[in-house]
């Protein structure tokens, strides 16, 4: 039984195969429109997440499959005290594959250990969110044509942003990748990423505070939101939330083919005026999120 709990559950070869399939789905969607007929996706969302949930549900529907599930803890039997393991054992009788989102770290792994059907981690607290990483990788590979030979700028909350940590861990497996880590002092990348991933693997990186300083060199800029829920102190949040705002003027400093990515939702870190810039790829990224989830469902169900 295959599950996807962490972005690193897939080898580089498996990942390439998955991204190839996602690109084929993008090109020939009608070829895949009935591939999951008679199959059901259980969408087990213990906390609200409009984007990820709808993306999974759209992916299954695009494949001709059906969706069942719940979208908040209150409507699940967790309120009656049922464990994640028991829930997935029961759901295994109703569905062919499950996507689980849970506020606690490790919940998806617990589900996979008890499950009779493939489990996809749709986010377990601040821990892992593998389908976001797959979305990011598919977007980069589709729009840049490669995952190697890139100078990638990561900007904003690099301390708590799990998407940034997972993306770094996934990209260091490709040759000649370097990183520019752009953050305020308080939100710098955690020590374990700096030491156990970047330094250990000899990956070139530099840490800067000013976005303007980094922009001219970048092939890709990955913006992140400063999340209010990560701060104990309202004042710190207010000070940090407007630290980086990407606007038209700053975009003039960037290469003509630099991509701007963002896991969304954005607040104000990217001005809406940037949306019409052809380098703004964050809404395309949301579309790629559906393709990669379609490819993942097909792969885990061993249909493709």
């Amino acid at each position, binding site marked *: 039984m295959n599950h996807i709990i962490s972005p690193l559950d897939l080898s580089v070869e498996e990942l390439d195969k998955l991204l190839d399939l996602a690109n084929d789905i993008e090109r020939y969607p009608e070829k895949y429109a009935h591939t999951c007929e008679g199959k059901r996706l259980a969408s087990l969302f213990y906390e609200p997440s409009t984007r990820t949930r709808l993306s999974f549900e759209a992916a299954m529907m695009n494949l001709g499959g059906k969706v069942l599930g719940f979208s908040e803890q209150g409507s699940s039997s967790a309120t009656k005290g049922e*464990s*994640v*393991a028991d829930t997935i054992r029961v759901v295994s009788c109703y569905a062919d594959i499950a996507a689980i989102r*849970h*506020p*606690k*770290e*490790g*919940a998806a*792994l*617990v589900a996979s250990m008890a499950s009779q059907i493939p489990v996809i981690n749709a986010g*377990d*607290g*601040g*821990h892992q969110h593998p389908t976001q990483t797959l979305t990011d990788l598919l977007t980069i590979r589709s729009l840049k044509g490669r995952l190697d030979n890139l100078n990638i700028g990561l900007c904003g909350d690099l301390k708590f942003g799990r998407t940034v940590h997972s993306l770094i861990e996934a990209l260091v497996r490709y040759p000649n990748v370097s990183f520019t880590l752009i953050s305020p002092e308080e939100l710098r990348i955690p020590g*374990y990423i700096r030491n156990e991933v970047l330094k250990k693997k000899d990956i070139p990186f530099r840490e800067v505070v000013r976005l303007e300083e980094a922009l001219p060199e970048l092939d890709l800029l990955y913006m992140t939101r400063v999340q209010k829920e990560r701060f104990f102190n309202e004042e710190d949040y207010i000070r940090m939330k407007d630290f980086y705002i990407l606007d038209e003027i700053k975009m003039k400093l960037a290469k003509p083919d630099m991509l701007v990515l963002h896991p969304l939702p954005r607040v104000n870190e990217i001005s809406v005026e940037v949306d019409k810039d052809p380098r703004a790829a964050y809404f395309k990224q949301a579309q790629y999120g559906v393709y990669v989830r379609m490819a993942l469902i097909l792969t885990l169900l061993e249909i493709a």
Partner: protein
Amino acid sequence: MLNVGQITEGFVLDHIKAGNSMTIYHDLGLDKLDCTVAIIKNARSNKMGKKDILKVECDIDTLNLDILGFIDHNITVNIIQNGEIVDKKKLKLPPEIVNVIQCKNPRCITSIEHGLDQIFVLTDEEREIYRCKYCEGKYKKYK
């Protein structure tokens, strides 16, 4: 000179860091066994200054000694049969430990689902770092 009687079958755990014997007593589940246990605290040691020693009289298959490697791999385990030392076990860090330590991360699934096994995996042998199997939270082994 303190004298504690010889055992005929069981273990002598020697070179325990002074003060750790009671932790080991509980972690090995000796409190749950109906056998003779001698706990010697702060015994004089040329090598360590002072040390603890545990003598356990029981069937040699009764105890899971893997956990000792996690607690302190410098402990000497003497296996006794017919009153003689028949084997000395060399300890190493176990690759995985189950239900010995608890994850302290309040965001971990184990913080709300208490029926789950507390599993820690050795992720860095050199630095003796174990991580929770579920949340990957770090547990730095105590010395």
